[in-house]
């Protein structure tokens, strides 16, 4: 019970802080939109190739925008020294991880909600909200699970902006492949496709478990 209360308190603090400072949401949202617009102009989109290009463009926009936000969540705490203060509290480190993960999912989720209709309009594709929801949810969970752990690791270094993508990108490749292919299947149904959603869910479980177990060692000296 105390664990949950502390998770909610940290999450509440992060959301309130972000609502007032507006550091992440605006930057992430604008970045995602810019990527979608640039891709829209870069590719020669036709009816026959849109199903192959659009999912990739969507997930590149989401992944890049996510990394912008993921880099800030723990780095911002480190910069003002408040991470030390949080570590001084008798709080289970898993509660800190879980709260940061939920916060990251929320921030990325808001950006995705804003970006999805714009993506549908720019690429002239249907949204498939019901079918797309589990793909977006599970993929965002996987990206945020890895990103939260490695943002804690990168935040302790000087080259954090450079280090975070280098650490995170290789690990989330399976999730990105699964998300792109699963989204592509919605636009152009194919036969004999592997169960992409199941693959993403399996990676989520692995990443979440490893991150929860190792966060304590990453965050403390």
């Amino acid at each position, binding site marked *: 019970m*105390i664990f949950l*209360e*502390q998770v909610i*308190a940290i999450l*509440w*603090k992060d959301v*309130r*802080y972000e609502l*007032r*400072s507006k550091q992440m949401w605006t930057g992430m949202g604008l970045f995602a939109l810019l990527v979608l617009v640039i891709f829209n102009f870069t590719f020669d989109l036709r009816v026959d190739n849109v199903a192959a290009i659009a999912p990739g463009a969507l997930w590149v926009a989401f992944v890049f925008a996510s990394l912008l936000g993921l880099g800030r969540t723990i780095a911002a705490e480190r910069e*003002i*020294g*408040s991470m*030390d*203060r*949080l*570590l*001084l*509290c*008798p*709080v289970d480190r898993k509660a800190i991880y879980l709260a940061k993960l939920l916060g990251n999912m929320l921030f990325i989720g808001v950006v995705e909600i804003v970006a999805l209709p714009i993506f549908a309009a720019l690429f002239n594709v249907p949204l498939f909200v019901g079918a797309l929801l589990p793909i977006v949810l599970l993929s965002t969970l996987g990206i945020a699970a890895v990103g939260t752990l490695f943002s804690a690791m990168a935040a302790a270094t000087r080259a954090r902006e450079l280090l975070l993508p280098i650490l995170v990108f290789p690990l989330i490749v399976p999730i990105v492949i699964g998300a792109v292919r699963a989204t592509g299947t919605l636009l152009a149904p194919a036969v004999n496709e592997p169960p992409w959603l199941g693959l993403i869910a399996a990676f989520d479980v692995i990443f979440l478990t490893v991150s929860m177990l190792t966060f304590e060692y990453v965050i403390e*000296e």
Partner: protein
Amino acid sequence: MRNFAHLSTNNGEMYSRGTLSGGQVYPCGRPDTRPASSPFFLEAKGLKKSFGLKPVLRSIDLTLSGGERVALLGANGAGKTTLLRILVGLTKPGAGSACIDGLDIVRDAQQVRHLVGFVAHQPYLYDELTALENLYFFGKMYTVKNIQERASLLLDKVGLEKSARERVAVLSRGQVQRLSLARALLHSPHHLLLDEPDTGLDQKGRDLVEALLEEHTARGGTILFTTHQLERALQMSDSIIMLNKGRIVFQKKRADLELDKLQKTYQEVT
């Protein structure tokens, strides 16, 4: 069997004593020989710490009994802040050990966190949250009971009742420092470790802080603080320790010291 009943927040009553079987306190496994009038203690033995190849602390031995206030003096880089960070559990010692009320600061870190309040050189507050929101948040982290009452009481005591709903970002440096002290006292810790607590405080702020610290030691708590002001060290402490290059080079009771003598010694040893 260890009894951690004393770890719960008591919101200002006389601090209770942590005991093992039969009421005897065992500091990190050894029988306590301290008198019963000193229920709390902080003890460091042979603490060492290096950053890379540079030794920062070299075998520090330190003991604080309940109700005692100790000033830690030393030039920049003497190791004062590192010593405090080790004692609060933010930095792990390279060698040696430290016990707080019978609990090892490394092995029993989670329990020790309930016993210690820390005011660092940086305020460690969320500047986009209000003073009250900061206290509520940390109250939840320490599972403080009646957090609303406790936060209001502390804001009143540090003279910030009118600024309770103002964001920390708009508070002055002195007000932020007072709020930091309120946050450190929120969970009624037995031991206060303060890194230059006077930073940014005006005379009124100093008086308020002094009254709070007086109240803390009167309830049996201990205070270990660093300062660069020798006069303040004499005013606020019961004994004075000087660090130089990670070693304790001077240790004396305040009663045996006068300001000019202290200044002379400080110049000689640092």
